[in-house]
């Protein structure tokens, strides 16, 4: 019931946003909205950044939708997400994650509702970059397995602070985008294995960092790191890392490819594999 209300509220917001869209895309430079992270917010692939989705600036709106697939050794993750940017001030997002347990059997589905507020600054123009705070409310739809392995809850809320800044003419004349995110979370494997555990029930403060080189104004390569808590006794949880490349065909379409190393997940080690994500923006 609650889930239905949530989805309907997001659709209503999207409809209102679309109705007031100007004909052109947002005015911010191409790529300055990042891509869609797996939890729905604008960012890299694994970590939310301080930038807001799309290229909307003040007085403008942007709506983005993304489809993502990660193929790991023993798992496959599919994510569908939508996000809206209101005046480059507030971002609202919704994502549906579907993790297939190829080796263990079964699936774990989770919905993530996000909000991100730009507090101050600008990725390109402000000397301190752009700084935002965000929340991600996560609800598991498949709850039996997380409970069985010791998770305390099947829903939880992450809170994060993120800063992003573009540095000009850094490496071989290229601009470099740096992002740092601090997150307070109880999530096990991002929430797909529930929240809190037998070893640690409370919140952990974790750090996430991304570094991206703009080879051309439209082509980016970079690395990401996402620190993780380790709450469950039955299996170790590792930090996530990836190398990625993204190409922005224009302000409306971007394609991201990555190589992920997610470490040990639910007792299965060395979860590595490819990642591809397509984002469209209006």
């Amino acid at each position, binding site marked *: 019931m609650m889930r239905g209300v949530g989805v309907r509220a997001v659709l209503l917001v999207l409809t209102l946003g679309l109705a007031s869209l100007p004909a052109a895309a947002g*005015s911010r430079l191409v790529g300055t909205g990042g891509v869609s992270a797996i939890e729905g917010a604008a960012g890299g692939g694994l970590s939310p950044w301080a930038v807001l989705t799309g290229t909307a600036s003040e007085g403008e709106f942007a709506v983005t939708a993304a489809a993502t697939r990660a193929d790991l050794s023993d798992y496959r993750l599919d994510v569908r997400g939508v996000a809206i940017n209101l005046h480059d001030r507030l971002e609202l997002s919704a994502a549906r994650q579907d993790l297939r347990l190829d080796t263990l059997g079964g699936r774990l589905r989770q919905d993530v509702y996000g909000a991100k507020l730009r507090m101050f600054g600008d990725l390109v123009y402000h000397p301190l970059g752009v700084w935002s705070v965000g929340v991600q409310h996560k609800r598991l739809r498949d709850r039996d397995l997380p409970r069985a392995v010791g998770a305390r809850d099947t829903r939880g809320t992450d809170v994060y602070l993120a800063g992003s800044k573009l540095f000009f003419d850094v490496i071989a*004349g290229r601009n470099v985008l740096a992002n740092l995110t601090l997150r307070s979370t109880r999530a096990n494997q991002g929430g797909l294995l529930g929240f809190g555990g037998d070893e640690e029930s409370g919140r952990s403060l974790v750090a996430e960092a991304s570094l991206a080189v703009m080879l051309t104004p439209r082509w980016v390569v970079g690395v990401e790191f996402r620190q993780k808590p380790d709450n469950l006794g039955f299996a170790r949880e590792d930090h996530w890392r990836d190398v990625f490349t993204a190409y922005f065909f224009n302000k409306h379409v971007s394609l991201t490819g990555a190589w992920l190393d997610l470490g040990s997940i639910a007792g299965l080690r060395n979860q590595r594999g490819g990642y591809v994500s397509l984002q469209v923006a209006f």
Partner: protein
Amino acid sequence: MLVHFFRIVALAGLLAAVPVAAQSSATLYERLGGQAGVAALVEDFTWRLAGDERIVGFFANTNIDHFVASLEEQLCAISDGPCTYTGPPMDKAHQNMGLTNAHFNALVEHMQRALIERGVDVGARNQLLGRLARLHGEIMRLQ
């Protein structure tokens, strides 16, 4: 073996140092093509502004020759060329024009395209864009 390795490293260092030394002795102004390069850049940029309906209205009461000369002088000064900017400060020059970030973004986009179109090398292009981006705070102060 070790000596051989160090010789290779030293040689590689020398080879790497040559282009770096040549590049660092050139000012950004020279890398933009000096006076002729900056003049061509400003002309290209100005035509792009003239063709942009979001921007062109701001120039309705502007003497374009004066604007072009002033922008050339400013770009020359900001890129360490042999000029001193004699125009008004950036906040006064744009006072109460009703500029938004959307307008500023459009200007940056036009400058970026003009730099690419003029064939300015990527390092000089991004260095100039970085120096111009720093003007944002002053230009927007009195809006």
